[in-house]
């Protein structure tokens, strides 16, 4: 059998969202407990946009920036922050054996080209020929790569020189859970020493928002925290980038890296959601298999609840079985970034256990309650709006 699993540390965090850039900005905003969403840009829908990133800081060549749609730019930027945070940016000997797993969506459209075709094609004498002609002459050749799922990873390789391996997982929320799960399993088993895991999302897209609105998941104004959307379920999409450096403890120690937190476990499930209670049961099963004892009064739950029905209601049922544990749902502040959401929450959980404290509640329904104790463990939940359940355990390194 394999030797005992190796310990894995989180040694780098790169996060950007509507709350700002980096762990400190995020923590400060969470402490202030004043969630806000944009009700204008995609009205009547709410989104949480990301503003004010100086892309030149992480993507020095304008030519590279032009080759990317915003989601790739956000992600490549956040990946650079993570590499910097871990102290490995530009370290070619480490980057050349760094294993990258990106959780990606993609599929951004050229809205002007699409609009012209939607308008013109039905009236054209030969509609299909019209479609072929317009796409051939109007599509930017580079758009394909700028919206292609695996090209976020491709851009990170080009811009930051991460070349050990590159894998892109797709599949909405579960892609983020699985990216972290596989990266961790490979490190624990000795198949990898250091990995870059992350994803990004651009919420300011009517074409992508529509995918969720097909099933009525897109949240309309006015804004309410995720637990307070009882009669109006749904999520406000959130732009974000979240990347983590996961590293074998001995590898980190050998290069003198300081751990932010320990990534003890990442579990993933795919409950068949035919019957009420399936999500709750899935979360309970995973909770029961967490590999480390939970310390009384020193563990909290960072919930990835989105506000989607019925997923969030079922997660609430699960949480009510663990009423002794303080809960915080970051989706209230960040919105829902789909693929990177779980990774963002693992990053915030790492920040919380590193600081040993939690931020204030933002909920009047009783799920989130005040907590001022000192924490050492955070359990992160990730419940996909349609499919996919995940759980991670992040611990302070004492």
């Amino acid at each position, binding site marked *: *059998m*394999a030797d005992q699993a190796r310990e894995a540390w989180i040694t780098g965090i790169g996060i950007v969202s509507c709350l700002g850039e980096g762990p400190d900005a995020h923590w400060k905003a969470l402490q202030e407990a004043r969630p806000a969403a944009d009700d204008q840009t995609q009205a009547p829908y709410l989104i949480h946009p990301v503003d004010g990133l100086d892309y030149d800081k992480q993507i020095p060549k304008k030519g590279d920036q032009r080759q990317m749609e915003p989601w790739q730019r956000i992600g490549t930027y956040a990946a650079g922050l993570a590499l910097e945070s871990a102290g490995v940016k530009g370290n070619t000997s480490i980057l050349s054996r760094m294993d990258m797993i990106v959780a990606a*969506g993609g*599929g951004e459209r050229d809205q002007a080209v699409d*609009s012209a*075709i*939607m*308008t013109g094609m*039905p009236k054209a004498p*030969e509609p*299909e*020929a019209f*479609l*072929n*002609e317009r*796409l*051939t002459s109007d*599509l930017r*050749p580079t758009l*394909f*790569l700028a919206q*292609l*799922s*695996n*090209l976020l*990873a*491709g*851009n990170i*390789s*080009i811009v930051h*020189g*991460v*070349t050990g*391996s*590159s*894998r*892109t*997982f*797709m*599949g*909405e929320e*579960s892609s983020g859970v699985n990216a972290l799960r*596989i990266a961790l*399993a*490979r490190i624990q*088993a000795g198949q990898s020493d250091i990995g870059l895991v992350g994803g990004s999302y651009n919420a300011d897209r*009517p*074409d992508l928002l*529509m*995918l*969720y*609105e*097909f*099933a009525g*998941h897109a949240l309309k104004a006015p804004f309410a925290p995720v637990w307070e959307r009882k009669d109006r379920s749904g999520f406000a999409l959130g732009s974000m980038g979240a990347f983590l450096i996961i590293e074998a403890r001995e590898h980190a120690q050998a290069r003198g890296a300081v751990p932010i937190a320990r990534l003890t476990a990442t579990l*993933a499930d*795919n409950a068949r959601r035919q019957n009420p209670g399936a999500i709750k049961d899935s979360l309970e099963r995973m909770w029961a298999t967490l590999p480390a004892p939970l310390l009384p009064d020193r563990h909290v739950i960072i919930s990835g609840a989105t506000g989607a029905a019925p997923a969030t209601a079922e997660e609430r049922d699960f949480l009510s079985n663990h009423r002794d544990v303080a809960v915080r749902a970051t989706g209230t502040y960040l919105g829902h970034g789909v693929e990177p959401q779980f990774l963002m929450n693992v990053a915030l959980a790492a920040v919380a256990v590193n600081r040993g404290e939690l931020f204030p509640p933002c909920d009047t329904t009783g799920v989130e309650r005040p907590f001022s104790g000192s924490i050492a463990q955070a359990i992160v939940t990730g419940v996909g709006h*349609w499919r*996919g359940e*995940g759980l991670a355990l992040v611990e302070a390194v004492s």
Partner: protein
Amino acid sequence: MAAKKDSAGRPVVVVTGMGIVTSLGTGKDENWARLTGGVSGIRNITRFPTDGLRTRFAGTVDFVPLNDWSTPALSERLAQIAAEEALAESGIGIRGDFPGPLFLAVPPIELEWPQRLKLAQVGADGDDTLTYQHALAAARTGQFKSYHERFMFMSVADHLAEQFGTKGSPISLSTACASGATAIQLGVEAIRRGETDAALCIGSDGSVNPEALIRFQLLSALSMSTEPPEQASKPFSKNRDGFVMAEGSAALVLESLDGAKARGAKILGVLEGCGEMTDAFHRTRSSPDGKPIVGCINSAIADAGLSPDDIDHINAHGTSTPENDKMESLGVITVFGERATQIPISSNKSMIGHTLSAAGAIEAVVSLMTLQNQRIPPTINHRVPDPAIPLDVVPNEARDARVTHVISNSFGFGGQNVSLVMGGEPQ
């Protein structure tokens, strides 16, 4: 009984079931007969009008009935066909209860033009100029709820996981044209970690639609050959001018050697090694020095515990683009040195076309059939050799040969390079 380990002390990973569907037909027998017969599956596109397109041919799979055609729907159907064949051959588990995870290589999923046009029409509300706001208005009506599930990236893997009863959270992945090989690699790694005794690895692609074709055309990646379609894909030829888009799927049941032996399964071959190395040179072009390709091939051979001298056949990525074939040849010559010109290297894409997300899995299955049959499918359409590629490309006719270890290469946009080393049943 001591567990069977490889030279690195890891569980040996074997293949106990394989399934394949391509433009050449359904199933291993049909595909093998046509591959070794030098038959092309490339033909003129009839799925949609090709007026105004520079490339009007592809390796489409049109013989599979499908009600609502879309890329995810066809990719899912092709994956089902391949998986059913692989599971039947393997005999593992019981129907609908596969004892391991699913790793699926699948094209990125997007809403497509028929749906987009319908939405705009329904949401038009008398307006003359239609935009995504009209499509969104249609989405709000709730009439199009089925589009949500169909166009989620997760949908194909989710449906396959449910149908075949795979365990845990299925993984859908993309490493562009290396995706199929990555799916296999993830399965190999999971078994080596001891996480599972079995994995179902599938690559599938049913994405020949107007926009997908035009996108590759705009990148100048496709053949615009004016010869008959079946002659358009001509890997390693001097007059090669691009790849030919194609569809298909392949599925492999991977098991630990111990697990397979314990249940008395027939072992079809061994997944001996996987290698990868990312190219950071350019989004669509390889580093001119070929180092990432060389590193990828070398790491796969090393992972198999072999040396380049042990490899006696190469299943090429061989796309028929001027760039790929030149760089792959350079990589092969660098790794294998003087032996390079003596190792038969064959491109299945000369007959099947480039099945994109499925190619790595399809070519792994063909590699394993090559080992089983000790016969190498040809690179067809090789009429004008490229003097810059001094390799034995098995031109035009299949050949019997002693094959003990095959390496299959997959290289994709975004610097994705994966190689797999496969061998026959272990002694």
